[in-house]
């Protein structure tokens, strides 16, 4: 990694870091190379925020209500600023914001199991026992490297069980997991004084030197030193402030909601501003086999303010054109209401909201049968096509093939572009 501030002094980045941390000078380090952090609008490198609704949200209680029908349940609809589009009345704030994004009401998949559905919706591929596909975020981190970003380029906020994986791109592209975005980051503070940290690192150099003898090539491949250096860089980086949500005004924090998910969305915006490529924020609790309506009401109370604040913030800061927002879960829920007032898994005709990052806006794709008789939605959209489109718009060659460890070339996505979302049809 080049270090523009000290072009010819012949000292390594690590020495600089060590020196600066020793002297308490970490503020002299550049926050971001160039002006990437400040660039706005279309000029800005692109990123993705995934709002992951774990458990499978009901399309009928979110973006595709059918009030007054047999399947509609108690959920009512409200109008939005997209002419003709009504969403569940649990989302009054989103009703005012959703025109900046698009709604897809006809996603189809064949995966009705949580684990398999999550895999498909994170990667765009159905599970394959012979290899692990990278998630959208991992592909972005891999394909769109960014100089000067000292914190991980792919971050997962909230419950981590479904955090995206690097898969065949390598573990180093796994999402960096932050379980509770409202609490200080774990393991980024040295456990000892500066002087002793120095001694520890100098010991490490001596040990590594001995081990390198006869193992230079093998050792380089482990990325051991590289990871330690990057971890040290991260530990002293001013960019870690992106996680310090206390810096935000009270009113902003209140608007997002003072809960793990709301805070996560706010941190996500701060991370994107810092130059992170992909952020996942997880909200769980959607698996409403019983008491579907209560569960969705409670979750909407968290999702609506956080999502709407995020979209507003991105717009006001001129970041929406460079930042895609995708709000989705592993599948939808059955039109039929079961005897426990619940809805079960439903992988055909489920909904998502997606927009920003250069996509068209204000579109509604597909429709479901208000009577719930037809399984197939009108104008079905395959998950892989949506993901090909997302990658394409974010500047990744979606059909580029990578060689996998099992020697089988694999495209980032096998989908076809959804021309309408690109604003072309």
């Amino acid at each position, binding site marked *: 990694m080049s270090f523009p501030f000290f072009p010819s002094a012949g000292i390594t980045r690590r020495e600089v870091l060590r020196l600066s941390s020793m002297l308490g000078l970490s503020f002299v380090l550049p926050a971001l190379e160039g002006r990437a952090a400040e660039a706005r609008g279309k000029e800005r490198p692109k990123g993705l925020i995934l709002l992951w609704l774990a458990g499978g949200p009901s399309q009928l209680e979110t973006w595709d209500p059918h009030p007054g029908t047999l399947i509609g349940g108690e959920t009512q609809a409200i109008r939005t600023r997209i002419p003709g589009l009504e969403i569940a009345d649990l989302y009054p704030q989103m009703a005012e914001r959703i025109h900046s994004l698009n709604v897809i009401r006809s996603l189809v998949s064949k995966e009705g199991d949580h684990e398999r559905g999550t895999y498909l919706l994170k990667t765009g591929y159905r599970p394959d*026992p*012979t290899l692990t596909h990278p998630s959208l975020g991992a592909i972005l981190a891999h394909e769109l490297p960014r100089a000067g970003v000292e914190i991980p380029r792919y971050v997962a906020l909230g419950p981590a069980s479904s955090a995206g994986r690097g898969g065949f791109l390598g573990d180093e592209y796994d999402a960096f997991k932050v379980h509770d975005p409202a609490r200080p980051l774990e393991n*980024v503070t040295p*456990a000892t004084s500066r002087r002793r940290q120095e001694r520890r690192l100098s010991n490490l150099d001596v040990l*590594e030197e001995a081990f390198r003898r006869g193992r230079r090539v093998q050792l380089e491949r482990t990325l051991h030193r590289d990871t330690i250096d990057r971890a040290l860089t991260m530990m002293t980086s001013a960019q870690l402030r992106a996680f310090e949500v206390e810096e935000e005004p009270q009113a902003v924090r209140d608007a997002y909601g003072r809960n793990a998910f709301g805070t996560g969305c706010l941190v996500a915006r701060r991370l994107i501003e810092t130059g992170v490529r992909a952020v996942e924020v997880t909200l769980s609790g959607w698996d409403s086999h019983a008491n579907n309506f209560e569960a969705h009401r409670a979750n909407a109370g968290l999702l609506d303010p956080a999502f709407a604040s995020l979209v507003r913030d991105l717009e006001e800061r001129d970041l929406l054109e460079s930042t895609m927002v995708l709000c989705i879960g592993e599948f939808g829920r059955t039109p039929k209401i079961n005897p426990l007032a619940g809805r079960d898994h439903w992988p055909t005709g489920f909904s998502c909201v997606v927009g920003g990052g250069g996509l068209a806006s204000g579109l509604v794709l597909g429709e479901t049968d208000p009577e719930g008789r037809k399984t197939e939605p009108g104008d079905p959209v395959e998950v892989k096509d949506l993901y090909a489109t997302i990658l394409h718009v974010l500047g990744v060659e979606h059909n580029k093939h990578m060689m996998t*460890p099992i020697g089988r070339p694999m495209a980032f996505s096998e989908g076809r572009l959804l021309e309408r979302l690109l604003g072309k049809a």
Partner: protein
Amino acid sequence: MRLPRLRNFLVPLGVAAAVCLLVASAIRMPRVPTVPALPDAASASLARAVERVNAEFDRQWRESGLTPAQVADDLQVLRRLSLALHGTIPSLEEIRRFEQDTAPARLERWTRHLLNDRRFADYFAERLARSFVGAETGQFIVFRRDRFVQWLSEQLQRRTPYDSIVRQMIAEEGLWTGEPATNFITAAVANEEIDENKLAGRSVRAFLGQRIDCAQCHDHPFADWKQEQFAQLAAYFGQVRMSLVGVEDAAGEFTVEDRETLEKRVISPAVPFGADWQGNEGTRRERLARWVTHPENRRFERAIANRVWGLMFGRPYFDPVDDLPDPPTGGESDLLDLLGEDFRNHNYDLRRLIEVIAASRPFRLDSAHSLDDEAQLAQLESQWAVFPLVRLRPEQMIGACLQAASVGTIDRNSHLLVRLIRFFRERDFVEAYGDLGEDELQDHAGTIPQALLRMNGKLVREVIEPNPFSSSGRITGLAGSDEACIEAVFLACLTRRPTETERKHFLAQFGAATPPQRSAIVEDMFWSMFNAPEFAWNH
């Protein structure tokens, strides 16, 4: 009133007693003085098998013009063995005993010693179980999986022949609690339905080392399989039912839905080769079990030889571990045939297989080599002429940290408290360090969260803290000289002595240090050791 007061008095007393016990157990001299010699016959038979394996490698290396690495130091081999068989590094106590042992065939005897330790059965069962029942940890799966691993560990301890273990997994009937082998089947139950395809795919991958679920890109005979043949194999599981008496076989046909016509078709069980191996008796699963484990089914013994090789080296002989090339034909044989044949002739004894691999030349070679060229090294590695660097699995990492931090051996004889600490810390750490699931034998580089965890995590901070129980504290307190102290830390952490440069580097730190400064120096040494690549990568 009296009771709480009594408790106030008893609890500290109990803690004090526990502490005394701990200290006493840690300070006492090594328990078992010697590791017994191998019986002559066993020793000669092992030597013959190893000889054949070595001859095969010598031939390969000669033909490719490769100069293998030097033979590794015995202590380094002991470290590899401990990591592979117990999931941890040798304790200072074990190292001292090993070094005092000067009788012949030391490594062979110690391999057997490690295999006879209960820690082997427990650890190896867990490693093998990944290929049999996966690594998933769903809330219901976890209990069945634990029961399965426990059962497998018992089989390893009793030296149940591997073919019999596999037959039980495929064909056993009964409740998952009472007949734990049935959890091979229950692991493939989703939404109360048995997934016959998953069972067929897993059986062939785990037991025969073939991926039939991926026919797109390979050109061995399995790749020529049609959907039909896969379904025929799945049909062997088509009569399995889950009932009140657990897993059982009922009458009934296995049907699949035709994708075009959406009509159901009955599929009869059939195997792709060796049809007469299955016999006619018993349930479908019993026939499949006989076919899989038939002595003439070379793929069976080759698959386990490849897997055990992988668990010993961290890399399978053929990668990926469950997608082997066809067995050589025309009377030819390769390494897997050599190992497989020996394994079969020794009653499918997994320990025998491990002993042969552990004594083979590739396992004894150094991980360092004088060649420094990437392409040449890749060739050396591909032919096992140098020992590969492989990232420690999370539980090996934590096992190694905890073991290094405790002078005595942590095993089933350890004090309950120490074991409990290990248990709880291990789970959290494995979670944070990231498990590799079923892909564990593929190449993995280090990650930033791992580096952060090692450098700044609570676990490392706690175990290196100098206190009367940790080696950090005890080595500082008990080692006579600075030199002895440095040496003890190196042995406890890296299973080797310091080089001259290292010795000087650390000695300089001691200088005229006061006692508190000394313990800080030792604590820092431990930290550096835990973060060194030599510690975090098997070599």
